[in-house]
């Protein structure tokens, strides 16, 4: 059973989002997503300064098996990316909610986070997809 931390928000496209104390939003892919992808071998991150609308493609995560797009869960400007993933993409498998984060956004409107799924709704969403 994959982990779905209760304090995070989730997109139906399997990204998680966490509102940080400084007002930025950290984004990664869920435990369920990394399990489904298998061994991650490459991550393409957005560039700092990129402006993204909610649902925009923000990068790509590739496993031995396949490539999968990652999307911006809310609108905002990219303020940081996890450069460690360029050399150690396997961190996404090992620690998807902490060291395996992808990028941070300065959100246009933090209120947009409320439109995302809570943990129990996301769990149901995963169950429906299987």
């Amino acid at each position, binding site marked *: 059973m994959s982990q779905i931390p209760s304090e995070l928000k989730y997109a139906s496209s399997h990204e998680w989002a966490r509102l940080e104390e400084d007002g930025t939003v950290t984004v990664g892919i869920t435990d369920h997503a990394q399990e489904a992808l*298998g*061994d991650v*071998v*490459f991550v*393409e991150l957005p560039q700092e300064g990129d402006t993204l609308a909610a649902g925009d493609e923000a990068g*790509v995560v*590739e*496993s*031995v*098996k396949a*490539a999968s797009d990652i999307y911006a869960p809310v609108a905002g400007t990219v303020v940081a990316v996890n450069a460690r993933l*360029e*050399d150690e*993409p396997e961190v996404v498998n090992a620690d998807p909610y902490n060291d395996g984060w992808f990028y941070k956004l300065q959100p246009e409107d933090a209120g947009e986070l409320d439109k995302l799924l809570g943990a129990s709704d996301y769990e149901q969403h995963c169950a429906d997809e299987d």
Partner: protein
Amino acid sequence: MAEAAGALHKTPLYDLHLELGGKMVPFAGYEMPVQFPPGVKKEHLHTRDRAGLFDVSHMGQLILRGDNAAAALEALVPVDIIGLPEGKQRYALFTNDQGGVLDDLMVTNQGDCLYLVVNAACKAQDIAHLEANLPGGIALERLDDRALVALQGPAAGEVMARLAPETAGMVFMDARRVTIDGADCFVSRSGYTGEDGFEISIPADRAEDLARQLLACEEVEPIGLGARDSLRLEAGLCLYGHDLDASTTPVEASLIWAISKERRADGVRPGGFPGADIVLEQVASKQVSRKRVGLLGQGRAPVREGAELFDAEGRAIGGVTSGTFGPSAEASIAMAYVSAEFAAPDTEVFAEVRGKRLPMRVCKMPFVPQRYHRG
């Protein structure tokens, strides 16, 4: 999926795959395990480190029997079959009249007959091709009642010797009939990973027993099709339908080594196979417009089948036919066809991936050293 789930075949190891947690996918008309719980990368690395067990029962196993069966098969392949010693296996190619490759296969001289292993997806077509072209007096038998498993990796020799001590003396491409626990097995010291190892043909009703015995050895883990693909790609071995097809000649496919010297223009039995004029002219002139090459990515991004290739000036020069991130090579690796002028090692080319042009370098294959047991 065009194929209804109910139409898929199951191999004799199907129940065992499920028991082992195999993730089953349709492949060439069969339900096959693409991976087991450890996942593709761990399975791949385990095979290179210890030993992996693969179910390849979907492949076609055939027997050709009759006087002059070797001469009859030679009429379809550019390979020396007449001179293939008893107890030896050889790689071969069925060619068409244009010199294109209809399938690649393994041929073993079993003494009283020839034993062929062909690709699952080409099985029906190969049988039709053989039936249409074999002369009278040569019987073609389908061994549909046999399973085929591969044991691959540096520990394979030791493991096999425990089950069948007489395999210890075999070297790469040796083939023997061996009785394992009373089962009549065809064992060859060969495979599709670049490692030492064996392929074992066994009566279907004895396959699960054998697989369980092998898996009971602490060195051995079950391996799915995902790792089989990354292992063969690192080993520089072609996958038919991807790196080889009916519009590609052996010379374009960089498989000149597979054309026996006996069958070349200056050999003792020159030509005499479909498309010989075209293929032998290419062998002699070394002139082909495109060639299969290995590519090594300069970054980590996998470059997959279908990616287009460009030169530094942006001209289209070819395309990728297989590609992945090689777990042992620890690099993005690919096989591709490029215009002949770009086929030299160290030539820089650019692969288009999601609108970006990623630099790659033509490199010699295999991507990892072969470790066959040559005695």
